[in-house]
């Protein structure tokens, strides 16, 4: 059954009415083609509430998805609804939207305060309202002491935070952040992640994209995985992780005596194989990652062998995608 899109009535041409029952974001079989290149392939998705992470490799279609959601791009096929309204035609729902694009481009000649307050006035705020709102959001993202500095003199993290501030100035219900952590130093990452978590705690609907699994992990558990323009998976990250634990997994140990250590771990019931890829390296192959990890410290201590590092080479987006794609084929 096709979703009841007519719930918006004539509102695409009429002054926009809030449609309380409409999800914040709704995509129905949306595809986007750039000539021969497929940007987005038959994506159906609805998001309302919570923090959602959109995961995908570079070029997976994250930015295309966002641009379609916010009405920058027109879908080649399918239907997009932002709060029940077609965003490409009607800019009214932007009133409830805050969008941080991946673009680095800003008005470098403006000060942070000017940038945020000027754009705030486009929501219909008065000059004074805009200024006080801008100060509020700039303080929220921790930039209150540099508001009168020109954006051109800001660091990357500060620029990113000004962009986030500008997206928050209208007190939006839906916040879309496209790669907010890209290119930021660790301190800025932490600040931005805290901001996003705080916003999530405030009950906003947040969609944030990244190509780094660990980043998303620190922000949210609810994820959408995109691959080659397709919606690959959707759900709770823990659930996905648990599934991952059930599949063949590898643990990399660095030790001066890999063969001796291999003999120690091989008897473990969940370990079904060991390999020695390089000098001083041992790879344990297992079906139950957690069980092995639980016993591994004890086994190493008992053996008295020295181990310099324990790594999970599969604990990244590529492996996740690899598994998911395998599962589908």
């Amino acid at each position, binding site marked *: 059954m096709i979703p009841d899109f007519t719930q918006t009535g004539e509102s695409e041409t009429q002054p926009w009415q809030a449609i309380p029952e409409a999800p914040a974001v709704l995509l129905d079989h949306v595809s986007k083609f750039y000539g021969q290149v497929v940007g987005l392939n038959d994506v159906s*998705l609805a998001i*309302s*509430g919570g923090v959602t992470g959109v995961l995908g490799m570079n070029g997976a279609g994250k930015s295309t998805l966002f641009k379609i959601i*916010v009405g920058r791009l027109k879908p080649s096929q399918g239907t997009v609804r932002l709060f029940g309204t077609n965003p490409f035609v009607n*800019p*009214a729902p932007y009133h409830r939207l805050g969008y941080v694009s991946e673009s680095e481009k800003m008005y470098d000649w403006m000060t942070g305060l000017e940038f945020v307050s000027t754009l705030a006035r486009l929501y219909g705020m008065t000059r004074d309202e805009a200024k006080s709102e801008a100060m509020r959001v700039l303080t929220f993202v921790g930039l209150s002491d540099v508001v009168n500095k020109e954006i051109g003199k800001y660091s990357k993290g500060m620029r990113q935070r000004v962009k986030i501030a500008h997206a928050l100035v209208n007190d939006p219900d839906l916040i879309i952040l496209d790669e907010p952590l890209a290119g930021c130093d660790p301190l800025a990452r932490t600040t931005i992640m805290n901001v996003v978590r705080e916003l999530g705690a405030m009950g906003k609907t947040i969609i944030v994209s990244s190509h780094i699994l660990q980043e998303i992990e620190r922000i949210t558990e609810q994820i959408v995985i995109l691959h080659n323009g397709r919606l690959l998976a959707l759900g709770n990250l823990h659930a996905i992780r648990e599934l991952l634990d059930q599949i063949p997994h590898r643990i990399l140990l660095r030790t001066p005596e890999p063969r001796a250590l291999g003999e120690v771990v091989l008897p473990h019931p969940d370990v079904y194989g060991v390999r020695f890829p390089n000098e001083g390296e041992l790879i344990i192959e297992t079906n139950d990652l957690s069980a092995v990890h639980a016993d591994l410290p004890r086994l190493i201590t008992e053996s008295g062998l020295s181990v310099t590092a324990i790594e999970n080479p599969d604990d990244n987006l590529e492996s996740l995608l690899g598994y*998911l794609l395998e599962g589908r084929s």
Partner: protein
Amino acid sequence: MIPQVGSDPEAGMPQQTAIAPRPESAQTIAQRAVAVVPDAVSRPVKSLADTVWTKIDRKATAVAEFTIKQYRNRMSTWVVAGISTMVIMLVLTFYVDRMADVEPAIDQDGDGKDWDDDGYPAGQEWQYGTSDRDPYDFPGAPYFEFEGLYTEYTANGTFRGSGTFQYSWVNTSVPPHQQAREWLSWNDHVVFENMPDCPDGDDDWVPWDTGSCRVDEDEIRIRGRTVTGDGTFTAFESWEQFEFGSWVDGFEVDPEPRSKYIDEDGIDWDGDFNNPNQGYDDDGDCHDLPVSEQDSNGDGIPCNVLYVFDNGTIIDIRPDNNVDEDPDDAVFMKEVAHRSFISIFGRVGFLFILGIFIPLFLASGLIRDEFESGTLYYLLGKPIARAELFAYRLLGFLGLAWPFLLLLILATSLVTGFFGPGDSLFRFSDIAMWTGVAVAVCLTVLAYAAIFATFGIISPRYGMFLSLIYAIYEFVMMFLGLFQGVRQSGISLLSVSYWGSEIVNATAWLVWTDSAQMSEQAEAFGWLGEAALGAVWLTPFPTAYPLVNLILSVVMLLTITLLFIIIGQAFFKRREID
């Protein structure tokens, strides 16, 4: 249907264990997604109904203000403004220089000349009836009044000719100007001082150089001279008669300055287009003519100027001889130069040069530059329609361009007002004309801005190229529009520049109603300036009524603007902002 939010408050975080590689339908996803955080949507939402249609003014000022600030931070704005100001100032320097020049007054009827070098201009000599070719015939000069011809005569009077004069009294005082002369003539009195004695024997010989000699104490001989006294004058031969008459003494007449006879008979025109009988013989030199010559234009009125009208316009001017024949051409020429300057500078300087270049360099990028720099979505990702944004950006451009251009026009009008010809300190009469120029410039700039900005939207990559080609087209149209034939053919109507220039032209017709008359007069009284006046105004077109054309031009320019805004926003609306 998507489930009513809040219908299941206990829903909480649902168990999401399943991975859905391929969602069955959007609806199920929507159900799930909505269920994730049910209270997100149930919160009271802001009233959005009034966001689009109200607060428009706030958004407009915000965008316009932002646009102006953006211009202020661009080098190109200052370069364009600087060059424009310099060009205007340069042209104004030429204008002031031209107006400060003392125009050499032209003496059309030649009565300011002193042909015979006697110190009296011809005009003054004519009034006194003296000859303008004889240096001894001048106003107030003594003269001989003829009475009769004799061979021998005795009387108290003046004798003129050749013979012997025996006198009891003689006037030895000689008018000073006659003494300095090298060649004496009949008109000249004999000089008594150092008069040589006549040689003995030869009874009628007189030295050539003096024309006179002494015979005795009371007798002199003269040849071809004049003498005044009481006595008997006897001609040398009986056939050689002499003149007798009386000598009228001279009186003092101050020579008038030559300038009094230059530009002394101005054009007298009462401004009545129904009165063919115009003109006044200010210097009276028509009335000095024989009556038969006083009505050379044959209208039955002596010493006037016949104006021939056709439907309220002067088509011919026929002056009688010596009427209004020496007007103040310097005033005329300056007035012509002044009017030509305002009209041509208003049209070419402001309308074409600044009117095209300022929008070309500043308005082409109104939307395009934001496209190119990737910052457009900051403006578009707001509850504001694209057409609105386009219009407000234009507003921002106008907020910068209009005050700037009006300032330049004001400066120019002040300079031409103070330095322009006329007796008053300031030419208030030009204010209406400059207002016309200002209106024309503002509307033209608006139309060009809409056109160039639309080109920028239609093709961000080739927009500037399109705009340049269009600007060249407008230049060609402007150039062709200067030719009467092309204007009348209607080809020029297809350009913005035409309508702008027609506002200036129509204003010139409405404000300077005497320009046609000046033009006709220039032709009738035969001086230059007619050509320059031709540039002041062109025949009104497309209608014959300046006021209609003025209104039509304003409407046309606004229509063109609106048309291009509609085209521009139509393209803009369909544009994806990548």
